[in-house]
C-alpha cells in the first residue's frame, strides 16, 4: 500500500504546561474523508493546526508526516495543504475573485492561467463568476462566503484540504446541503479532506473514518458504522448517538464456543447475558468483575413482562415517559432496581393509534444478548 498522505506518530503538544494533544497517532490515506470529532477543548482543533503547521509538536512530541516527509518544522506555506477556516477568514478588503486568486498570486501562477483557474474554482463550488466575482465578502450571505472560502482553498489543488468546523455558522438546511456537496467534492477531486467538527451527525454523514477525540486523546478511530455499533468507551457511546448504560457484576460463564455467554447480575435488578465468544472484546472479564455495557435505544424492545422472546435479555420496570418523535417513539422505563433506560420504537404505522404504552405500565425491556457493547474505562 502507498504511503499514507498524513501520518501522526505519537504527537503531543502542550501550551504553558497544559497538554492540548497527548500521544495522538493515526494515518490517513489518499482521498479519504477523515473527521476529528469531539467536544470543545478535546484537542481536535490543535491536532488540525499541527497538521496545518500553525503549531509545532513539543520537542519530544512525535512526528507529523505529510506525503511521507516529516514536516514538524515546516511553515504552513511549505506544506501541500489548503485550509478552510471556521469563520471563513475571507479578506474583507478584497473582492471574491481577488480572494480566490490570492493563493495563486502568492505562488506566482502565470497571469494567463490565473483567470481560468479562478473561474473554474468558483464554478466548482457553484458560484456564478459573472454574478459574484466582483463582490466583497460583506456583500455575500453566510453560505456564499462558505463557498468562496472553499474555492479559495481548492483553487490551489492541494493534496490535503483541512476544514475547521466550516459549517458551524450556517443554518441547518444549508448545512445539510453543504455536507453532501463537500462529500461529493472529496470523491470528485480525490483530495484528502481532514474535517474538524463537534457535530456527530455531520461526522457520520460525511466521513470515511472518524477519530473521536476526548481529553486530548483519540478515544476511538474507525468508520462511522464501527464507531456507532461498537463504541469502546462510555464517552464515545454517549457522544455518537444515544446510549443506555447498564452496570453489573459478572457471575459466571455459560455455554461454549459461539454460544458462550457471561452471565451478569444487573445493578438494576435481574440478570442479563453478554457474549463471550469474541475474546478481543471481553478481555479481562472474570467472575466477580464489575462490568458496564452500552445498548442503543433502537436495539431495545419493550414487551409485556410475560412475553419476553426466548433467548433475549430482559429487565423489568415501569414506563415513566412516552415521547412521540414522529419517526420514532421514545419510551423511558424506570427499571425495578433503579435507573432509567430509553427504548426507541420505530413508527411502523400502527404506533400512534392507540398509543401502545402509557405511563405507569409494567413492562420488560428486552434485547438480544449480542446487541450490546462491553465498555472499557474512559
Amino acid at each position, binding site marked *: 500500500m502507498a504511503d499514507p498522505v498524513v501520518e501522526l506518530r505519537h504527537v503531543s503538544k502542550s501550551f504553558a504546561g497544559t497538554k492540548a494533544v497527548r500521544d495522538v497517532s493515526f494515518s490517513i490515506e489518499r482521498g479519504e474523508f477523515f473527521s476529528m470529532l469531539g467536544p470543545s477543548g478535546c484537542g481536535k482543533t490543535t491536532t488540525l493546526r499541527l497538521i496545518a503547521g500553525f503549531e509545532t509538536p513539543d520537542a519530544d512530541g512525535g512526528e507529523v508526516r505529510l506525503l511521507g516527509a516529516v514536516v514538524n518544522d515546516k511553515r504552513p*506555506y511549505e506544506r501541500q495543504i489548503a485550509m478552510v477556516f471556521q469563520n471563513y*477568514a475571507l*479578506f474583507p478588503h478584497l473582492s471574491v475573485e481577488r480572494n480566490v486568486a490570492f493563493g495563486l498570486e502568492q505562488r506566482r501562477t502565470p497571469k494567463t492561467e490565473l483567470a481560468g483557474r479562478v473561474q473554474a474554482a468558483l464554478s466548482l463550488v457553484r458560484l456564478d463568476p459573472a454574478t459574484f466575482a466582483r463582490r466583497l465578502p460583506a456583500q455575500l450571505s453566510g453560505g456564499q462566503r462558505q463557498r468562496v472560502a472553499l474555492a479559495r482553498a481548492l483553487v490551489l489543488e492541494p493534496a490535503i484540504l483541512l476544514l475547521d468546523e466550516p459549517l458551524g455558522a450556517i443554518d441547518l438546511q444549508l448545512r445539510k446541503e453543504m455536507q453532501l456537496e463537500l462529500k461529493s467534492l472529496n470523491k470528485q477531486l480525490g483530495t484528502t479532506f481532514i474535517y474538524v467538527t463537534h457535530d456527530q451527525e455531520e461526522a457520520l454523514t460525511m466521513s470515511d473514518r472518524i477519530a473521536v477525540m476526548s481529553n486530548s486523546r483519540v478515544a476511538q478511530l474507525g468508520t462511522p458504522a464501527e464507531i456507532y455499533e461498537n463504541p469502546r468507551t462510555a464517552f464515545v457511546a454517549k457522544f455518537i448517538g444515544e446510549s443506555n448504560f447498564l452496570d453489573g457484576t459478572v457471575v459466571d460463564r455459560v455455554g461454549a464456543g459461539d454460544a458462550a455467554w457471561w452471565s451478569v447480575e444487573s445493578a438494576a435488578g435481574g440478570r442479563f447475558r453478554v457474549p463471550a465468544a469474541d475474546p478481543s472484546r471481553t478481555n479481562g472479564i472474570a467472575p466477580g468483575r464489575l462490568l458496564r455495557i452500552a445498548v442503543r435505544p433502537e436495539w431495545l424492545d419493550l414487551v409485556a413482562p410475560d412475553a419476553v422472546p426466548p433467548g433475549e435479555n430482559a429487565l423489568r420496570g415501569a414506563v415513566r415517559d412516552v415521547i412521540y418523535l414522529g419517526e420514532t417513539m421514545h419510551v423511558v422505563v424506570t427499571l425495578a432496581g433503579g435507573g432509567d433506560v430509553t427504548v426507541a420504537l420505530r413508527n411502523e404505522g400502527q404506533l400512534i393509534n392507540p398509543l401502545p404504552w402509557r405511563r405507569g405500565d409494567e413492562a420488560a425491556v428486552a434485547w438480544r444478548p449480542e446487541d450490546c457493547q462491553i465498555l472499557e474505562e474512559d
Partner: protein
Amino acid sequence: MAAGGLPDPGGGLSAAPGPAAPGPRRRLLAWFTRRPETEAWALLAPGTVWMLVFFAIPVVVMCGYSFMPRGTYGGVDPGFTLEAYARFLHPVYLKILERTFVVAIVCTALCALTGYPVAYAITRSGKWRTLLLFLVVLPFWTSFLVRTFAMIFLMRDTGLINTWLLRLGIIHQPLTMLYTPFAVLLGLVYGYLPYMILPIYASLEKLDPSLLEAAEVLGARPAARFRRVTLPLSAPGLIAGSLLVFIPALGSFLTSDLLGGAKGLLVGNLVQNQFSTARNWPFGSAASLILMTLVLIAVLIYLRLRPAGADGRRGGVLS
C-alpha cells in the same frame, strides 16, 4: 417651539414638573416618542450650540474682518478691502506657507513611520498591552507648554543631551539643536505621536488573526502578509492618525515659537503675531482663512488618494 426646529431640551426639561403633576411630563415624553428624530436632535443640541457659538460664529466674524481695513490700535475699521489677501501673496509669506506645509507633511510622515511599529508592537504585547497604552497617553498628563519647555532644557547647548555626549567623549563641541528646523520637527513629532499611535492601534487590534493565518496557508510569507493583509486593513487607522497629526501640525505655533529660530516661522506664528504684536487683525484673519481653506483642500485630496484595490493591486482577475 417652531415645528421642525430644534427643541429646547434645557428649557423643556427644567420646565417639566415633578412627579406631583405627571400630566405635562407625560405629554413631553409622548412628544419625544412620537417623533424619534426629535430625540436625535435633542442629543445633538448641546454640541451643536457649543460649536455654533465658539466655532461657526467666530469663523464668520474672522471672515468679515479679513475683508476690512485694519484699525490703528488693533481691531478693524469699517469698509471693504482685499488688502490683507493681496499682502499674503508676497513671497515672504508664501515662503512661510510653503515651510508650514513641508514641516506638517514631514512631521506626519515621521509620526507614521515611528508610530506604526509602536502600535503594531502594542497589539502583540499580550499582558503588557494596557501598560503600554497607558504609557502612550501618559504625556497628556502634563501641559504641552511645559513639555515643550522641557525639550529646551534637553536640547540647548548646556542641556542634558549635550552634557552627556560631551562627558562620554562622543562629541567635543556642543551640538546646535535648539532653534533649528530639526528641533521644531522633534517637538512636533513628540507632541503628536500619540494621535498617530492610538488610531493605528485601534485598527490593528480589530484585525482578525485568522486572516493572517489564511494568508499564510495561501503561501504568503511575512512581508507579503503585511503588505497584502495587515497594511490595507489598518489603512483606516493610518489615515485617521495622519489627519489627526497633519491638521494640528499645520496650525501649530507654540513648538516653532519656543524651539524654532527666527527663520523657522510658521503660519501659526504669523497669525499669532498679527493679532498680538503686529495688531493687524485683517491680515491675521486672512492668513488663518487661507490656511483653513488649504487644509480642507489637502485633506480632500488625501482622502481621494486612497487606492480602490486597497492591497495595491488594481483591477479584476477575470476579464
